[in-house]
């Protein structure tokens, strides 16, 4: 299946440094069209399109907007989550670099739909080099054109701040750690006001939906997951890069046909917190119901050790845990300890049982998505490549 570019429609076509170029390619038409509709009509259109959040959880965007729009508050806020922290993803950076105006237009439509005057663009600290370009593009566009004010806030380099509640704490100037839910952001979000938080890629879908209608959008993709998904493919492939394919495309088409992977052993879909798919299951369709996450696809060939992969991932989470809840703070530390012991060939079989039990408990008891997803790669590699673990046990 070839690529299908909806989110990346302007990348490589529009000059990202020139608003005239964006206008010449039909820029801001969707915003003008949306302004002629009532906010509720916009929300219903997005709801009807079946668009789902691209941050990884796949929550219906229209429903999120509706909840926030109907929630009473002194002010409403839209936050664009550009804290693309997941290991191995760079699709949002590609969008920010190549189509900033398209993103602003999507944010402006979201503001119109939920009645927000201010929107925040939470930019990852590592993307500081994009700040100048974004601010210049924002200044060029102007608040009057957008009908809202977009403020860029920079992160400070914490992975957990990509998690929506920690992100809001960070914007509020507090320590970046997860809040408990409920209440959810559409009711009590930024400064306890109704807030919509959407991923960069989600907001990039808004312009085409408004322009072409929900019915057109539903024809792309598969059933409960309409539309396309951008993937950042890296690892043992010939052609790494950003690829956009419709939902339901088989994983093999993405990594083998498009990216040119050979001798695949396993693919981790969704970054460090993603699921590990063994080569035998490469025909898995890419949907929110199977495997997906934020869109990082890391291909591992036959030379890679799966225990090493799990150890690398857990090392990352032990470093990036905010430390608020016990299962994540202490659990990742112990997971790392058990995995390291195994790799040093001094582990016992009970250690593997402990890994399994601890992972299961972390997945159901942690406060936020970080801790709940941290043991994913351990659980999956244990399931599909259990022999590698047992071969490392001290005899």
């Amino acid at each position: 299946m070839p690529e299908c570019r909806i989110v990346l429609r302007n990348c490589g076509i529009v000059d990202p440094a020139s608003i005239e170029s964006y206008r010449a390619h039909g820029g801001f038409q969707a915003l003008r069209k949306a302004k002629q509709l009532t906010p509720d009509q916009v929300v219903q259109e997005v709801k009807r399109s079946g668009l789902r959040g691209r941050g990884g959880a796949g929550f219906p965007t229209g429903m999120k907007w509706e909840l926030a729009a109907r929630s009473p508050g002194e002010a409403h806020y839209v936050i664009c989550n550009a804290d693309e922290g997941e290991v191995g993803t760079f699709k949002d950076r590609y969008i920010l670099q190549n189509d900033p105006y398209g993103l602003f237009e999507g944010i402006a439509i979201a503001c119109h739909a939920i009645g927000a005057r201010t929107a925040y663009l939470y930019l990852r600290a590592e993307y500081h080099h994009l700040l100048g370009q974004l601010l210049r593009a924002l200044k060029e566009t102007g608040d009057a054109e957008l009908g809202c004010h977009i403020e860029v806030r920079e992160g400070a380099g914490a992975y957990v701040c990509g998690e929506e509640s920690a992100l809001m704490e960070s914007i509020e100037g507090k320590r970046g750690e997860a809040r408990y839910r409920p209440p959810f952001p559409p009711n009590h979000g930024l400064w306890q006001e109704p807030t919509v938080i959407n991923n960069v890629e989600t907001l990039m879908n808004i312009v085409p939906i408004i322009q072409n209608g929900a019915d057109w959008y539903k024809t792309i993709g598969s059933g409960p997951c309409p539309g396309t998904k951008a993937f950042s493919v890296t690892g043992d492939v010939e052609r790494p890069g950003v690829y956009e394919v419709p939902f339901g495309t088989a994983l093999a088409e993405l990594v083998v046909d498009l990216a040119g992977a050979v001798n695949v052993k396993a693919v981790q879909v969704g970054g460090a917190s993603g699921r590990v798919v063994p080569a035998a299951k490469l025909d898995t369709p890419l949907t929110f119901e199977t495997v997906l996450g934020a869109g990082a696809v890391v291909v591992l060939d036959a030379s890679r050790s799966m225990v090493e992969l799990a150890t690398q991932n857990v090392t990352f989470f032990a470093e990036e845990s905010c430390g608020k809840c016990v299962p994540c703070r202490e659990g990742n530390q112990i997971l790392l300890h058990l995995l390291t012991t195994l790799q040093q060939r001094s582990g016992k079989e009970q250690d593997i049982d402990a890994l399994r039990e601890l992972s299961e408990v972390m997945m159901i008891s942690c406060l936020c998505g970080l801790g709940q997803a941290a043991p994913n790669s351990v659980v999956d590699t244990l399931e599909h490549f259990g022999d590698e673990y047992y071969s490392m046990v001290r005899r």
Partner: protein
Amino acid sequence: MGVETDVVDIILNGKAVQAQSGTTILQAAAANGVAIPTLCFHRDLSPTGACRMCVVEVARSRTLVASCHTLVTHGMVIETHSAKVLRARKVIMELMMASHPDFCLVCDKANICEMRALSAELGVGVPRFRAKKRFYQIEENPYVIRDLSKCVLCYRCVKACKEVKGANLFSMARRGFEMKVVVDDDAALDKEVCRDCGICISHCPVGALVWRPDRFRKPTDSARTSCRPLVIKG
């Protein structure tokens, strides 16, 4: 306003019971005679949701939910002591004990330590997991002795100082395993930065914050006490 509107029907451990709307699962369970173990939660303070000790199983929820901050809703089906919940609590306690120093015998809070009582209740003895422990210098000021090696990072002192006393002396710093409760910019608590309110001490569930035994002694007392017979505590 009718009484009915303020009451929600829930199913608690298989029994249909009623709960006040707007209360947490923890409060609703207590009102119906079911005790859920807690550690970071304290009735004086706003819930934190950090220790995950009070997790319960709620039907149709992907994960376990912490009962201290989740409100009851109509028709909620709650299991407070299912095998899944008990296993999670036990593992969480084992995790907490893994990095906690084994100094219970010489700890000031030994017999009033909430963590020790809770681990006994959950049947957690010597923890299965081995890991590094935290070691910090013991800090003393005229009132408080603070031993962060024993701290379980429950946020109670942070919140007690902020919400009860209104002083906001403590905050959290660093992340992950390195996280610690700090004063100012990670200064040692060795100066008189606060008065002897002791709210943080009485809210600390473990022995990380204790009174200085000689805190109420007047300068003139020193002469008198030196004449007293030496008492060896048993």
